[in-house]
């Protein structure tokens, strides 16, 4: 090796040492190991607000690093069932709709929640806890209407079938369960029986309703005035109002169907301790109030005092709360397939 070739053994070993040193510098929390957990959740606003209200203020100081596994509800449920037989799953905690979490419980995929491990558990509202899930946020299904084009203000789901409003009612394709619930409540059905709602919905076809593929498409249509009325969660109505969509919300007199976002722990979660820490963090009053203010969903704990102005927009009055209806998730899980088929083949035809 002549002297102009500077790549000697000494240089090689020096380079290696520097490389290893740089690699160790990159690791988080030199000194304290960061605990890592995986949360399955919807993306978009929900994921962003979880990071903003729960993870960054409460969990990161405790040294817990949360990774989001982002996908839709049905996809994550499919993954949970597919992973069922593995000794260690890929997620520690999952956020599912209440209907989805019930389906997963029936499939035997979920861990029974040990509420003694959650310090904030005593503050949970009674309807928001089940043996297998912890309710994070809730809202209710209301009628959203544009006061400029729909007058007088609707009071009942029957107003969607008022011939006076023909051509102004919008229906969202993915919210077929919500529409069936609304139709069932005004045609002799109830939370255990949506069948009378089918005939009622077929009547809506004569009234020139407009169908939209997603919630966002409906918001657009309400904003441009293409439609004037729809059925939607109050929380999303609040978000739409914030975005300039001219709608008001009214709780129908037949009842307000509850929507709850549940958190569940898979039986084969690798890091259950971190999952419980997350559950405790998300029930903290600060985190709950943060969600109420930014996303319009109501807290599931009794000790989160939401500012009055916000509470008036997102909450329900005492007499509205008296007619909150809890869906029968077993009924929905068993009938979802046939209801969707009816919706696709007969209602949308």
């Amino acid at each position: 090796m002549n002297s102009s070739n500077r790549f000697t053994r000494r240089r090689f070993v020096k380079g290696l040492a520097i490389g290893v040193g740089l690699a160790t510098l990159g690791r988080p929390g030199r000194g304290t190991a960061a605990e890592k957990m995986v949360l399955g959740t919807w993306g978009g606003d929900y994921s962003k607000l979880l990071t903003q209200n729960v993870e960054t203020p409460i969990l990161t100081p405790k040294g817990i690093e949360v990774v989001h596994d982002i996908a839709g509800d049905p996809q994550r449920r499919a993954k949970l069932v597919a992973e069922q037989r593995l000794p260690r799953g890929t997620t520690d905690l999952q956020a599912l709709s209440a209907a989805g979490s019930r389906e997963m419980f029936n499939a035997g995929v979920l861990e029974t929640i040990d509420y003694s491990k959650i310090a904030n558990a005593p503050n949970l509202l009674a309807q928001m806890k089940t043996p297998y899930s912890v309710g994070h946020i809730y809202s209710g299904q209301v009628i959203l209407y544009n006061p400029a084009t729909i007058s007088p203000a609707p009071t009942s789901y029957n107003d969607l079938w008022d011939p006076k409003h023909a051509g102004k009612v919008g229906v969202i394709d993915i919210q077929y369960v919500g529409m069936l619930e609304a139709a069932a409540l005004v045609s002799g059905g109830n939370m255990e029986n949506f069948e009378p709602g089918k005939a009622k919905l077929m009547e809506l076809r004569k009234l020139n309703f407009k169908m939209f593929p997603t919630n966002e498409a409906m918001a657009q249509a309400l904003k441009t005035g293409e439609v004037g009325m729809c059925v939607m969660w109050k929380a999303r109505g609040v978000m739409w109002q914030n975005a300039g969509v001219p709608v008001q919300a009214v709780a129908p007199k037949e009842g307000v169907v509850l929507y709850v976002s549940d958190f569940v722990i898979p039986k084969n979660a690798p890091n259950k301790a971190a999952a419980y820490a997350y559950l405790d963090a998300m029930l903290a009053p600060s985190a709950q109030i943060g969600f109420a203010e930014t996303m319009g969903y109501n807290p599931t704990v009794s000790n989160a005092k939401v500012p009055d102005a916000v509470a008036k927009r997102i909450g329900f009055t005492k007499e509205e709360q008296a007619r909150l209806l809890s869906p029968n998730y077993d009924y929905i899980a068993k009938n979802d397939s046939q209801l969707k088929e009816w919706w696709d083949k007969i209602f949308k035809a």
Partner: protein
Amino acid sequence: MAGALVGPATLAVVLGLLVPLAILFRYSLNRFVPGRLMVDALTVENYVKFFTDPYYMAVLVRTLRVSAVCMVLCLVMGFPLAYALARTRSRWKSAVVMLVVLPLFVGNAVRAAGWMVMFGSRGLLNTLLGVVGLIDHPLQLMYTEAAVIVGITAVNLPFMVLTLESVVEGIDPAIEEAAASLGARPPQVFRRVILPLAMPGVLAGTILVFILGMNAYATPILLGGPRFQMMGPLVYGQFAGLNNWPFGAALSFVLMAATLSLSAVSNLLIQRRYRR
């Protein structure tokens, strides 16, 4: 040595395509139980469900019809453009070819969004027609079969043009001149000289466009709306929306079988007719 070179590609196809297809076919024979996704079984009920339900057959027929119409439109619009591009000696030839290919750089969903702006009830087309005075109230263009056909044709046209252009370039212009000098008028030159010689390219282009049309997903969803069903979105709905993997798998194989068999049949028929 040549065999070894093919090895990695073959392995990729086997692992990435054939093995998953075999697994999917096995799934299509399982039974769907709500809440438990899939129960091991050996049943053809998913295929029976498809073929005995007029709704699903209508979806397949609609998909075939839309793909066929798009294929014909692409051929009718693409051939003149391809011929002109192939024969031109202008220095802008490369630029024009680039312009034909440019739309492919933009994803299907983005292009469908563009069509939505065009076709909306307050969109560009309706506003223009209203301003000119041709209509009093907006036409319903969105969420129709016509909108889907326009969208799919727009996406597939570059493929047809490129395929045909390369084939026409391979036809010696001297042959056309010879035909003309023997007394053939331009339509005759086209029908008896150019078309038979370009047939391999026409076949390749139409099969390609047909396959793309059969498997279209973003365009039918965005431009057809929730009440317009084609096979691609139907398969997705079964897998991602209903978690009905057995039926979704059966739908996938029906779609694949329809596409493959029609492509193979047309290949045989045309080759037999135009074999030199």
